[in-house]
């Protein structure tokens, strides 16, 4: 299946029955798939009038207790930022998929990783975090989309799937999960009509500033719990690695091949791959700095994740960056060349 279709089916398998979206390349396969698939499973598909309308439809469906999703690509995700901030402030579950493309502005339709800051620092206003999952294969896109629905409901916080223009189009064999129960568990906060209970309110407005502070502290506690329990990463050939490549998403695939090639030539190179970019695996990466001699962050951007790598490494080892941007994909040869350059530097 192609990535976009697989992600869509995984959402359906996870019990998502409400999809609201808007066309934008390179995720138009998602809207087409959902338009056909949602009616098949008794769900609802709406092509909204804009990405803003779509995220607010998600807000509405989530507020009444439904499992809802939207998807878009970079410029459209920018439009959704206010809605995402509201979802976090109101503690509503929702899944938002970003099939990242070249930017800034209208950019290109090629793959990119330049929405990392937007995804991990919270692109909207206020102190909030979205759980951000970064698959690097179509199978992982399926697994992480399925997981996203579980996490978003568990924590009452939006979850972001960071796909990209290549992953969305890529065709790979996948094993799909079984269909989950479409009926979401009852929520003691959802607006279902005040029958046999006192009325409920969904809001993020607290004009009393000490109350808002308290609410923010509550969110912070939640984010701490997510950091403690949901951080995910992969270490490939890391045990005695001197040069550590740090990469996520589709760039990590290329780096994995580069690491294999390097190891075949007897070079001690490893790959550290964050799977959740928020929460970022700072502790595990810091541990790698005990033995590694140099870190190379590789991204399809001007360098965003590299700042988190530097935070983790905390000045103990040099951190370098290599990237391509605008929609250009990093080629294997480029990674190999960079590794060679850096190994010369440390020898």
């Amino acid at each position, binding site marked *: 299946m192609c990535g976009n279709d697989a992600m869509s089916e995984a959402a359906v398998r996870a019990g998502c029955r409400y999809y609201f979206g808007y066309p934008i390349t390179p995720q138009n396969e998602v809207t087409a798939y959902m338009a056909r698939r949602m009616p098949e499973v008794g769900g609802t598909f709406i092509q909204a009038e804009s990405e803003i309308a779509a995220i607010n439809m998600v807000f509405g469906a989530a507020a009444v207790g439904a499992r809802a999703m939207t998807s878009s690509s970079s410029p459209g995700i920018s439009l959704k930022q206010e809605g995402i901030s509201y979802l976090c402030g109101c503690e509503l579950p929702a899944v938002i998929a970003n099939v990242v493309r070249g930017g800034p502005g209208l950019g290109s339709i090629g793959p990119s990783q330049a929405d990392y800051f937007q995804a991990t620092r919270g692109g909207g206003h206020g102190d909030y975090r979205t759980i951000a999952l970064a698959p690097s294969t179509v199978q992982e896109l399926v697994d992480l989309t399925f997981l996203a629905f579980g996490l978003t409901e568990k924590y009452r916080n939006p979850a972001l799937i960071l796909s990209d223009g290549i992953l969305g189009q890529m065709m790979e064999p996948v094993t799909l999960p079984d269909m989950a129960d479409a009926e979401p568990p009852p929520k003691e906060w959802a607006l279902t009509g005040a029958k046999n209970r006192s009325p409920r*309110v969904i809001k993020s407005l607290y004009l009393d500033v000490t109350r808002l502070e308290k609410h923010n502290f509550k969110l912070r506690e939640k984010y701490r719990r997510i950091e403690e329990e949901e951080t995910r990463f992969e270490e490939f050939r890391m045990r005695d690695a001197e040069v550590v490549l740090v990469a996520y998403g589709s760039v990590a695939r290329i780096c994995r091949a580069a690491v294999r090639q390097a190891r075949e030539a007897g070079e001690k190179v490893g790959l550290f791959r964050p799977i959740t970019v928020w929460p970022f695996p700072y502790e595990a990466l810091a541990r790698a700095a005990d033995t590694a001699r140099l870190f190379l962050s590789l991204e399809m951007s001007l360098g965003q994740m590299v700042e988190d790598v530097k935070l983790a490494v905390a000045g103990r080892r040099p951190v370098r960056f290599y990237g391509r941007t605008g929609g250009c994909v990093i080629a294997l040869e480029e990674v190999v060349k960079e590794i060679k350059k850096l190994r010369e530097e440390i020898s």
Partner: protein
Amino acid sequence: MMEEGNERSRRERPQDSPERNVLGRTPSLKDVPTHFCAGCGHGIVHRMIAEIVDELGIRERVVGISPVGCAVIGYDYWDFDVSEAAHGRPPAVATGMKRARPDLIIFTYQGDGDLAAIGTAELIHTANRGENITIVFVNNAVYGMTGGQMAPTTLEEQVTKTTPVGRIVSDCGAPLKVPEMISPFPGTKYLARTALNSPKNIMTAKRCVKKAFKCQIDGVGFSLVEILSPCPTYWRVSPLDALKWIEEKMIPYFPLGEIKTP
């Protein structure tokens, strides 16, 4: 100056004839003072909606969506499920809610900025899709919460913070007539414009809003009722003069009546 009857006193009930309370606070309206200015129409419309909810017996399945604006804290006044929404987006939120829970009665409560400025796209497309929801549109021709700026429905020559010499149509455009604008859509079923400037008009407003809710309950489709409402504070007049202003200036431009019926 006689001031009897000022105290809340049920002990004053006459012995010889059973007395009944013919008008008081309806259960879905919380017994709390409101933050609205003296003479503000929001108080009347909030009460109106609460009465309609109770009269139609839908308190247990109604969900209201508050706007951004003076009416942002509707959930502090209504005693049923209410959600906040980002500015202008209540129709989209309502769409998501109604599609997920068609059994719930969903209404939005929106001011002129929320509905007809930032929320125009959501208004048009929710109406065009014919979502079976109800929009209560409180039009007071100004942005109250933020201090009195021009609204899409501010009248020509009306002075506001951002039209200090009065609204100039060649620069700002003409005031928008919302029900007329969405009337051509096949998806819109019941559209009305009412006003709060007299007891008769208030009663008509309540009838129309109730009809709109009934429209939704009966599954007929999208309904919107515009209510011309006084804002004494930012029109810079007394409450009674504000009602006069509605009669003399607003109604001639925004004609009252049912613009579309099912």
